[in-house]
């Protein structure tokens, strides 16, 4: 787990470069000129009180929203206005704040959806290359089962997703995101609704993934979880970045304390 103990060693290529991202909804400025960089191999955390703009920033990065101003570069490519469905092919995968799984399909089928961008796109082309499609299907099922085993859901593979409890749905979403073969994994409050044991398991899982080279950007409320996992953190408040640094630096940052606990606490 060298990457975790030595933040400096994690510095390398810049994976995600957010330059002055701004999001305006009419008169409301949800994200105000936020800039930050995530390096390859890092676990980068976004903290902030409710309404700070974390999810909006997330949606900007993942393409659900188009920034009103600013640029977002992924692997040195400008993706600010890139269509949502082209992102997984670039290597970006995400999970959602409220779990979005596909109902009416089994757990395994949900994970297999993650492979979609690697497969032949289109009805006619697929029909002309039927043999290849069918052979690939078999491989996919094996790869999907391996991912489910990795997150611990192998025995639920054929169950319908409606039968899964919340904690397992979160793991399913992660397995599905991993299926798309990302170089950057973006997790929107992955620990929400998990109990302590599940949260610990999640942390272990993410550490393991990071050790294998996956860069992770994480939005979470659980501060202990973040401090123990992230190499670097940025703190947002009312749409602006108020602090950035290592967990140790953030913990003592006055602006952060003030944002979370109020002005009086910072003078305490």
């Amino acid at each position, binding site marked *: 787990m060298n990457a975790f103990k030595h933040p400096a060693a994690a510095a390398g290529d810049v994976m995600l470069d957010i330059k002055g991202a701004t999001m305006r909804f009419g008169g409301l400025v949800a994200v105000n000129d936020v800039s930050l960089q995530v390096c390859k191999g890092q676990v980068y955390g976004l903290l902030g009180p409710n309404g700070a703009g974390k999810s909006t920033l997330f949606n900007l990065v993942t393409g659900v929203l188009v920034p009103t101003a600013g640029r977002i570069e992924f692997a040195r490519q400008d993706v600010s206005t890139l269509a949502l*469905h082209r992102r997984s092919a670039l290597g970006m995968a995400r999970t959602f704040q409220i779990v*979005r799984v*596909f109902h009416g399909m089994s757990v395994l089928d949900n994970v297999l*959806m993650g492979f979609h961008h690697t497969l032949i796109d289109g009805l006619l082309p697929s029909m002309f290359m039927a043999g290849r499609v069918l052979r690939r299907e*078999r491989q996919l099922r094996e790869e999907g089962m391996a991912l489910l085993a990795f*997150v611990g859901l192998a025995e639920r593979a054929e169950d319908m997703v409606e039968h899964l409890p919340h904690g397992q749905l979160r793991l399913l979403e992660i397995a599905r995101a991993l299926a798309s073969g990302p170089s950057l994994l973006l997790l929107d409050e992955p620990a929400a609704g998990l109990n302590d044991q599940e949260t610990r398991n999640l942390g272990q899982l993410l550490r393991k993934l990071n050790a294998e080279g996956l860069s992770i950007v994480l939005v979470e409320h659980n501060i202990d979880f973040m401090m123990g996992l992230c190499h670097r953190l940025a703190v947002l408040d009312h749409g602006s970045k108020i602090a950035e640094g290592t967990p140790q630096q953030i913990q003592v940052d006055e602006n952060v304390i003030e944002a979370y606990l109020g002005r009086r606490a910072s003078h305490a």
Partner: protein
Amino acid sequence: MKSLNTVRSMLAGPALILLVGALVPLLVTSGFHLRLVSIICIYTILCTGFNLLYGYAGQISMGQQGFFALGAYAFTLLMSAGDWSFWSALPAALLICAVVALLIGIPLLRLRSHYLAMATLCFGLVFAGIASRWIEFTGGTAGMMVPSVKFSGHVVSRTELYYAILLIMVLVLVMQNFIVSTHMGRALMSLRGDETAAQSLGVNVTAWKLRIFILSSVLAGLAGIASAVVNRQVNPSFSEFPILVSILTIAVVGGLGTRYGALLGACVVVIAPQGLATFGESETIIYGVCLLLFLMFMPHGLSGLIPKLFGRIRRKAVLPAHGVVKAGEIKP
């Protein structure tokens, strides 16, 4: 091996249907009954398209009958007025359906749910309206005669026609099974489930909606052409309400989102009225009551009934005692 399983599951059903279907002309004596079975095949083709579009992809189209009629009329016009040969008219008519589906699909598929239902319904009504009024071109409410299909002078017999339609239906089912058991089927179901999640996984939602709309419209057109050839005529009723009601009934009775629901539903919808005819004037009431009963007591249609009959357990019966992931299960 799972892939062999997939191939087997794709082909086994259709092969069985082909076999049984091939025996039908031997068991059935009257031309009328053979025609009924042909109509079952035709409705199966039509409703397979509808099933892919609505049952799997969740896009409610109440205008499939418009393409049913479009295919029939285009084919008939090309063959009789245009004097095209069968082998040119058939693909050309299907191409026309595809192009029209593309043209109206692009703006239309931004619509959701009831609005999509209405827009597609309008399409069907517009076609029916034009077909019944443009007497010089379409023959008006009387429609047009369809010339009998000839191959090098030999007129295709009713039995040969039936075999052709049976074969086409089986091929359509194989195609459907192929789509449904691969990533295409999953992509379609993701459209029904959650479009944003689908897009974030690389599914080009707009493109897929359009593709499946075009495919189901072409299938509807194909069914229409077959219907025109079997009935030796085409008229505006091809695009009118009763066909839509039949499509919806077949979907309900057979079961949406299933592989053989279209066939099962078509069998019931085509054969049952023959039995109902004895009730004479109460036929309409009984049709409505049966439809309602199916909706209430068999929401997954007959296809939902069959797994129960054969006792197949599709889901694990018992949930694990705890939902927590054991640390030891995380493998490198």
